[in-house]
């Protein structure tokens, strides 16, 4: 267990990070996901030692490091703005921690070269930090943090300073690099796609409270509340009341009709919110190939996005977002705003939460 947080909290007076319990496994890529001001950065700074905890404790490989200053923790950070040392060149930036440890020169050269090779910037070793691009700075910061193999590597919104095109590319590379170095990573991000793509597990936070910890799939498919469900991806919501249950299939009565929901072995409250992901609903031109649930509506708006088309469909008392994959759309008649359509989904594809 490389890193364990036991009721770790921080009180800034105005802002409070509620006691946080997390166990981060060896070799895991863990994400702290949440909107700004949710306490994710505070949690990361507590792990790095840049803030002192108000209460609780922090264990690194079994030993208590709660009160240890940053330089005595074998944890390194990739800072949001990289914080490369401007007075040193790329090589010396990466070599910084090894030089502090007074390693022999041959070892330093070898390991720095190895780290630079890993992030594919061997050719930049002699450059000044102001002679390289943002993406390259990102790589230097990463190389600098992994060169002496810390127990845990912290990443503070590492991709947010890059422009969007580069961000997507770096995300893939970051994933590949992490697989190669096999360290334990903790990353802070407010970008749910980033968290979904990179993490093995993640914690979703809001207002200083950790709402849910789980794998990307578990968080996406089985969120604990409507905030988590909405933060991780778009959803449609139907409020309703369970009127009957037959072998795990519940009938939910709502203003726009009665729907079937399949939930096995879970006790559900009477009043519920039915959450539907736009990609789990299909849009139909005619009433054919219907799944368990059907709802009628009229197209209000549509956006063609290349890989998929996003529709906003108006029903009697609600509006739904539905995605249609391009391959599927091509097979069918094109739709225009105003067209009458049907939406359908399977009874097991909805998320059920107690009504707020």
């Amino acid at each position, binding site marked *: 267990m490389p890193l364990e947080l036991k009721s770790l909290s921080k009180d800034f007076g105005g802002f409070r990070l509620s006691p946080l319990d997390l166990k981060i496994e060896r070799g895991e890529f863990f994400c702290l996901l949440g909107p700004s001001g949710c306490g994710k950065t505070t949690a990361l700074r507590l792990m790095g030692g840049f803030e002192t905890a108000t209460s609780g404790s922090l264990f690194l490989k079994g030993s208590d490091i709660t009160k240890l200053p940053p330089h005595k923790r074998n944890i390194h950070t990739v800072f949001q703005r990289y914080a490369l040392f401007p*007075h040193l060149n790329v090589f010396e930036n990466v070599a910084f921690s090894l030089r502090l440890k007074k390693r022999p020169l041959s070892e330093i050269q070898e390991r720095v070269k190895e780290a630079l090779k890993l992030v594919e910037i061997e050719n930049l070793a002699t450059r000044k930090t102001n002679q390289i691009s943002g993406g390259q700075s990102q790589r230097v910061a990463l190389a600098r943090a992994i060169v002496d193999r810390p127990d845990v590597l912290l990443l503070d919104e590492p991709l947010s300073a890059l422009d969007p095109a580069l961000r997507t590319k770096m995300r893939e590379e970051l994933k590949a690099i992490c697989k190669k170095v096999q360290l334990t990573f903790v990353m802070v991000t407010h970008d749910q796609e980033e968290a979904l793509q990179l993490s093995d597990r993640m914690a979703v936070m809001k207002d200083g409270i950790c709402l849910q910890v789980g794998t990307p799939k578990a968080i996406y498919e089985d969120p604990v509340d409507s905030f988590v469900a909405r933060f991780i991806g778009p959803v449609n919501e139907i409020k309703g009341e369970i009127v009957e249950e037959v072998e795990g299939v519940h009938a939910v009565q709502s203003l726009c009709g009665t729907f079937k929901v399949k939930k096995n072995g879970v006790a559900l409250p009477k009043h519920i919110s039915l959450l539907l992901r736009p990609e789990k609903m299909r849009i139909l031109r005619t009433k054919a190939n219907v799944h368990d649930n059907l709802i009628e509506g009229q197209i209000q708006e549509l956006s063609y996005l290349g890989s998929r088309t996003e529709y906003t469909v108006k029903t009697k008392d609600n509006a739904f977002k539905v995605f249609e994959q391009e391959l599927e759309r091509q097979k069918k008649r094109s739709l225009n705003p105003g067209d009458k359509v049907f939406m359908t989904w399977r009874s097991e594809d909805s998320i059920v939460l107690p009504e707020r």
Partner: protein
Amino acid sequence: MSYLKDKSDSLQTAAKTIPASAWFFMSWLVLMTLIPFFIIVGMSFLERTEFGNIRFHFNFDNYLVTFNVVYLKVLLKTLWLALIATASCLVVGFPVAYYLAKQAGPMKQMGLILLFIPFWTNFILRIYGIVSLLGNNGLLNQMLLHYQIVDSPVRILYTRVGVYIGLIYNYLPFLVVPVYSALEKLDPTLREASFDLGAGRIQTFFKVVIPNIKEGVFVGSLFVFIPMLGEYVIPDLLGGAKEAFLGKVMVDQFFTMQNWPLGSAMATLLSVIMLFALILQNRWKKNSGEAHAA
């Protein structure tokens, strides 16, 4: 040669880009600084008559006199004094700058204002203020005697220590401000990154903070070192006119000995030394500047 060529090119472009509003200041500089400077340089090659007048006879005699052992010793002593005083300013001023840069909000403004408040008072008055503090019957000695820390007054006034105290007191802000602004500009996450990578406070200070503010420290040091070289009021009033410093010797040549050509030669020599210091600084700045620009 190429260096000179670069210089003249950059001077030409500089002249073209001077905004209209700056012309007043530029003409002022030329009229009140540059022209008098060349008059001094010119005069250093002339001759003094027995009655203290100036004879237009081109010669190098004044420089030969200046390179006399006695005057060279004065020059060296002055350089040494200025060096020690600059170093002391650094020792005293650096923590002040560091403290101010770390403060946030009103304390910062307050500190900076306090630093400059003495400058609202006339320079000579401030020095006399120090005289009254450090003298045998001064506040400091009275306190020391009162609390029986010493039996007889400590002699500070009219010693070298008195001169240092005066110099440090007067020049400190000129060092603090450049160092402060360099520290202010330093990205605080650099220090965090340094801690993060395993450096303690002291290592961070020497390996990250100092290398990134050294230009500010150097500029601040020059700001105090150069005027100290020509300083004569402080050594005169606080040193008791016992010791001959270059500034004092020069002033004496002009106003007591009525030997303007010799005084001019000394002044020219001092200016050359200062010029070297400035060129050195410029070179340094240019080197780091190139690295930044690329």
